[in-house]
């Protein structure tokens, strides 16, 4: 006997988690199905972490509207959900006349979109704002910001879960069938029964649209690779530095500080057919070094600590290949569905505005009863690393596990690791601990702490060593015991 839900959301990226959180404001039994073992495995966890200003998107597009709305409300959102965020500002730098023309065009477009504070600045001012930035002049966007996209997705999910939403991992949707006034959603392992389906499947949003009977959406994967630089490089950079957009409005490789103090170099952009191919390549890394050095003067191999790749899910015109706007729709031919297709950058900034639109579309079809117990506030676990010595001492007096530093590079304590192992979403891999604590994310990349974390997962979750996973299903860490 399958369970019965009011709303079933496919995909636990930032958009799916935002929709779950906004649905939780109403009396709805909501569930999120995710094919991976944790939230933000796909592009929500593989991007630059920008809170975009909204000047690169066509005026009146959904991208422009949602981005500007999301940007303006984010101080409040970050406080409510207790996620690290800094309104850092951003400079889009240029070198020649073509760049100048491009920047002026985007400034005008940004102003038409309602972006505040855009300003053309000369080299002197650019140097004052960020001495490490390349460029002869720039457009300055003071309201652009940086956040931790994974922490934000986790926060949305945890807040949704605290308000009643369910999260199921390792549930890859294989088919959807409409029976009477319900949908039967089949995964590789289970069957779910729901009144509404919300498609937040990212790269697979075109496929899920098809399952719901809406054919014709084409999603093209625009892959981009990144280099992560040591926090030592982070001391040089004050704000994101982007090159002036090309004719198509696309940005080449940029340099962006993270809220944690690292620097990201990337992404570049090329088309991939394989939506699971998150590999990095020698030629693209070399390209990032070359192009990134134009933006940031401290791209040195000494500072490299990691690489990763993301794939932006762009909806394109199948004939012309032109990149199209976000889709957020409720269509007659697929009753009781909300279809979110082609959500790519600025999807992180737009996640909550899109989620509210999704809920509004649902409210047009049926009356929603407010959930009077909804609490929008979510508290993050306290980070030992961010406390004063006095506060650290006070924490240790309350809980001695705060006195056990497990991750030396990022100063993450046993108490924080234990909290992450027992997180509210119920998922537990080495990666899920990493994403919740920053353990293993420093310059030694887990050389000191990974074994301690693996052992804690084994003990706390009562797993066999062969059941400990790095991130995905099948990513086992150990083949067994050495002895006995």
């Amino acid at each position: 006997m399958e369970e019965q839900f009011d709303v079933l959301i496919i995909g636990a990226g930032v958009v799916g988690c935002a929709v779950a959180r906004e649905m939780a404001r109403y009396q709805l039994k909501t569930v999120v199905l995710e094919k991976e073992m944790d939230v933000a495995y796909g592009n929500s966890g593989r991007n630059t972490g920008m809170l975009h200003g909204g000047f690169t998107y066509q005026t009146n597009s959904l991208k422009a509207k949602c981005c500007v709305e999301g940007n303006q409300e984010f101080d409040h959102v970050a406080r409510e959900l207790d996620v690290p965020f800094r309104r850092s500002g951003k400079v889009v730098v240029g070198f020649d006349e073509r760049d100048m023309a491009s920047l002026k065009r985007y400034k005008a477009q940004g102003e038409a979109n309602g972006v505040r504070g855009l300003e053309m600045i000369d080299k002197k001012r650019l140097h004052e704002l960020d001495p490490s930035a390349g460029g002869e002049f720039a457009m300055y966007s003071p309201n652009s910001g940086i956040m931790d996209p994974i922490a934000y997705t986790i926060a949305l999910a945890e807040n949704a879960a605290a308000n009643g939403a369910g999260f199921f991992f390792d549930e890859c949707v294989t088919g959807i069938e409409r029976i009477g006034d319900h949908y039967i959603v089949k995964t590789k392992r289970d069957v779910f029964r729901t009144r509404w389906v919300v498609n937040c499947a990212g790269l697979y949003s075109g496929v899920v649209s098809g399952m719901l009977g809406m054919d014709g959406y084409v999603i093209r994967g625009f892959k981009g690779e990144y280099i992560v630089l040591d926090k030592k490089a982070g001391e040089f950079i004050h704000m994101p530095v982007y090159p002036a957009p090309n004719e198509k409005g696309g940005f080449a490789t940029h340099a962006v500080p993270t809220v944690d103090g690292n620097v990201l170099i990337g992404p570049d952009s090329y088309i991939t057919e394989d939506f699971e191919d998150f590999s990095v390549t020698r030629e693209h890394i070399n390209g990032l070094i070359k192009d990134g050095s134009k933006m940031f003067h401290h791209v040195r191999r000494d500072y490299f600590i990691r690489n990763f790749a993301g794939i932006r899910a762009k909806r394109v015109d199948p004939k012309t290949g032109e990149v199209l706007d976000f889709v957020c729709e409720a269509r007659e031919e697929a009753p009781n569905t909300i279809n979110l297709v082609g959500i790519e950058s600025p999807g992180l900034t737009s996640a909550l505005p899109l989620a509210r639109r999704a809920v509004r579309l649902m409210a047009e079809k049926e009356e929603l009863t407010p959930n009077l117990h909804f609490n929008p506030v979510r508290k993050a676990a306290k980070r030992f690393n961010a406390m004063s010595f006095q506060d650290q001492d006070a924490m240790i007096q309350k809980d001695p596990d705060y006195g056990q530093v497990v991750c030396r590079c990022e100063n993450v304590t046993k108490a924080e690791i234990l909290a992450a192992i027992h997180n509210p979403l119920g998922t537990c891999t080495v990666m899920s601990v990493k994403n919740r604590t920053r353990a293993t994310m420093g310059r030694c990349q887990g050389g000191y702490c990974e074994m301690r974390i693996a052992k804690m997962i084994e003990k706390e979750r009562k797993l066999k060593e062969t059941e400990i996973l790095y991130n995905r299903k099948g990513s086992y860490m150990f083949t067994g015991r050495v002895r006995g």
Partner: protein
Amino acid sequence: MTAEEKDVVIIGGGPAGLGAAVELYRKGIRNILIIEREKNLGGILRQCIHDGFGLNRFHQTLSGPEYAQRFIDQVEELHIPYLTNATVIHISADKTVMVASEKGILQYHARAIILAMGCRERTRGAISIPGTRPSGIYTAGVAQSYINLYNKMVGRKVVVLGSGDIGMIMARRLTLEGAEVKAVFEIQPYPSGLPRNIQQCLKDYDIPLFLNHTVTRIQGDSRLKAVTVAQVDDEMNPIPGTEKEYFCDTLILSVGLIPENELSLSAGVDLDSRTKGAVADENCQTNVEGVFAAGNVLHVHDLVDFVSAESERMADAVAQYIHNDSLEDCGLNIKTDRNIAYTVPQKISGKKDFVLSLRVKRPLKDCRINVTQNEKVKKTIKMRKALPANMIQLPIKKETLDSQTDLEVRVTC
């Protein structure tokens, strides 16, 4: 929070820290404290269960834990104070040391600090190995820890990248535990580990070593499935057409060690871009007065015996510093030619005997290493074979030096 006063705080309870503590005690410095982040003293030696330690020092071959125990026993016998399960989280130039422990944040103020934090392994990310990010990729030391300390088998079909000593030792260890080690690949035209390990860990077990090769692609979405290996040219770029695929579930990386100096930086210690350790003088003192360093935190050693010896020489200088409140100014630089990778110390006074440690940059045959001052050879050593894997040590007598001009180290072939 009030600071407890100490003559010397030693950060790290591995071979360097232990050696320094015992020697300080012998020189009459008793108000000392060793701070160790792990449950037990011993440092990385605890996981090095193979033998070969102590040949120089004790003239017998010991396992890592046995070697460490000799020092731990002395620390215990002499009642030298130490903290375990305690992590130093900050040190400052005024020699205040902040420690996180289960008792709370502890604060010490020291007259001298000894940096003995050892080193960490270079990672996949640092060398940007292309491909996907599956599980099954371990640095050699992490694999060694899993196998020897945590009783966890990391994999069954193994490829090793890098011919560092721990990589070769793990190739043997994994073979002994029933894994199939397919090959060791080294990007350089020469091995980076010691000749004895090439013989005892690879040749004795028929594990092939391919020089001028590197991993160009990692495959597998969940667990490692295969690696692509290619030959490299003189600039270390992969040569197209030489790619070969190796199916494996485990990749062991032994691609270099980096002195762990994050705390040193917080105290304002200057690092040498060649060693990645502190710029040190003949007393192992850094540019920050009263902050000293020895062992792998200063420069990566080939043998622990030399770490112990270095830490003892440093401890003698620290004892002198505590007694006299200062040490001789070291204004002379040691310059090197292009065949020398680095020297330690980098600075001397010219008024004290010292041991010059150095490594050559590439293998050299029938060469002579000359230490000169004012174009005069002050010390020379003839070497039939000089390998980057071997640390070369030259004791230099003060009588041969003047205290006015820089030293130079040059190789003639």
